[in-house]
């Protein structure tokens, strides 16, 4: 773990809102997923970490262990429903309970212009970004209900709420995630399972690099400035700021919050 990561995690005030809970995090090897897994672990949760990058997963396991929590890894392609089924059963076999689910795994796809995207890309975006979210929520109900409740946080996107050039297919999948979120919130409320989504604006992740290249391939520095200029707070989010929102929504601090799509976007969505 980098010293910046440790600084952040030791600066959260020592809160342990997720003590001894089990949280499944998809796309956990990097970016927002890794930050969410580490944040939850720092708050006392045991983690089931899912990703297709086994090497990065192994280093995450040791980082979670450093924070005093246990971590089981599930290596697999999230678009393969067998991976989704396997991660849900690992929560039960490894830790005997399921309290939280963070659906973070997603692809930005090719970010093709609207008129040139191929049908194969459309299908692939649904398979990676939407179907596993739906399936994992289906499978989470029974184990969460057995423990008298739970919390699901889906990582949607500001692209779910607003149009932006080049992100039509990505935005469509995130719009679907947002809609699955409110419907699951309604259906699962009777089991005291809360379902919310975080809608990040631009975040310092590899996807931001892709966006920068689309905006200005020759000068990514200028592209980054251009992106920041569209955000009232004049910067992009850190992955920790998204992870903080995830931890809040998973915790009992949000025990009366369900069906919410929470932008974490530096004020970008203030403009409708």
């Amino acid at each position, binding site marked *: 773990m980098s010293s910046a990561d440790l600084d952040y995690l030791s600066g*959260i*005030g*020592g*809160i*342990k*809102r997720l*003590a001894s809970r089990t949280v499944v995090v998809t796309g956990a090897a990097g970016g927002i997923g890794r930050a969410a897994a580490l944040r939850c672990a720092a708050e006392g949760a045991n983690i089931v970490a899912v990703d297709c990058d086994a090497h990065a997963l192994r280093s995450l396991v040791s980082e979670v262990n450093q924070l005093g929590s246990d971590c089981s890894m599930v290596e697999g392609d999230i678009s393969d429903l067998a991976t989704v089924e396997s991660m849900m059963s690992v929560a039960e076999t490894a830790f005997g309970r399921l309290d939280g689910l963070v659906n973070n795994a997603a692809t930005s796809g090719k970010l093709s212009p609207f008129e040139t995207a191929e049908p194969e890309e459309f299908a692939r975006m649904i398979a990676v970004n939407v179907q596993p979210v739906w399936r994992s929520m289906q499978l989470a109900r029974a184990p969460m209900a057995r423990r008298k409740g739970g919390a699901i946080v889906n990582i949607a996107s500001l692209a779910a709420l607003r149009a932006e050039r080049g992100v039509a297919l990505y935005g469509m999948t995130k719009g679907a995630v947002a809609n699955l979120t*409110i419907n699951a*919130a*309604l259906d699962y*409320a*009777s089991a*005291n399972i*809360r379902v919310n989504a975080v809608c990040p*604006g631009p975040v310092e992740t590899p996807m931001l690099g892709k966006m920068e290249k689309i905006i200005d391939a020759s000068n990514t520095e200028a592209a980054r400035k251009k992106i920041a200029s569209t955000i*009232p*707070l*004049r910067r992009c*989010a*850190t992955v920790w*700021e*998204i992870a*903080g*929102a995830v931890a*809040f929504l998973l915790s*009992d*601090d*949000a*025990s*009366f*919050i*369900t*069906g*919410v799509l*929470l*932008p*974490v*976007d*530096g*004020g970008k*969505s*203030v403009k409708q």
Partner: protein
Amino acid sequence: MNNNSNTEGRLKDKVAVITGGASGIGLATLEHFLQEGARVVFGDMNAENGDKVMTSLSSGLRREHVRFLQLDVSREQDVIDLMTLAESEFGPIDIVFNNAGIGGSIGPLVDTEVDHWDATFEVNSRGVFLGIKHGARAMIRHGGGGSIINTASTAGISGGTGPFAYSATKAAVLSMTKNAALELAEHHIRVNAVCPGIIFTPLGHGGLEEETEAVARIIQPLDVRGEPRHVASAVLYLGSEESAFITGEALAVDGGYLANGLIAVHPLPGAEQKKRYSGMTYGTTGKAPTVRKLQSGQDKWRHHE
């Protein structure tokens, strides 16, 4: 909730101002903020409730970290005095929670008096404007940024969830939240709102507790009784550095009420009675409501000229 062994405190050494802090959501937030290490000045119209809160705080550290000022949030000088008190007692202000509000004008809109409309806006909208204005001035003077949180309501977003004038005042709060967020971003001041749904406070159920519970079971998906602490923990999140990238947002704390589109419009507690009365309610300010019974045919406007 906050029964964790938290030694640091999420608002350690922060200075917070809360309006409407003597009861309900404001009081629960005061307790959360103190628990997390903040120093708090709270204002309330109701001096008796405010004094009661001060007496209830055990002596020692918690008592040392709180001050109370009786005020009317619709009066600019009162709001200025509140900010000045916080700065002189505890130092630069980090958090302002504009929470004071009243149910205000009730009854059919066709019977709503202009005075009642104005009085509702004076507290719920002008009060929030003044809290943002002078809270932001204090933060800009100090230069350290800050977080402003306003209590709006699900009634500010959706139709059919609150009295006519009240809902309009809360929509105004949401509009102020967005524009203040944009204008104050350069000063590193974040501005957000919470939108409580059905919360069991004296203002929330207006004395119709059982009826409110029955309505909640129909319109609110989550089988949880909404309590002030539920909103307070959301305010804590928005007030703390944890939400450093969130500004201009309206966070619903409503047990899924707004997400529940299909049965959103349902008669609210007391809906039938409210059709037959018109007047003004003042929440927990201590001021008695002035309500008159409407008799069909009595009001001039009902007759064709």
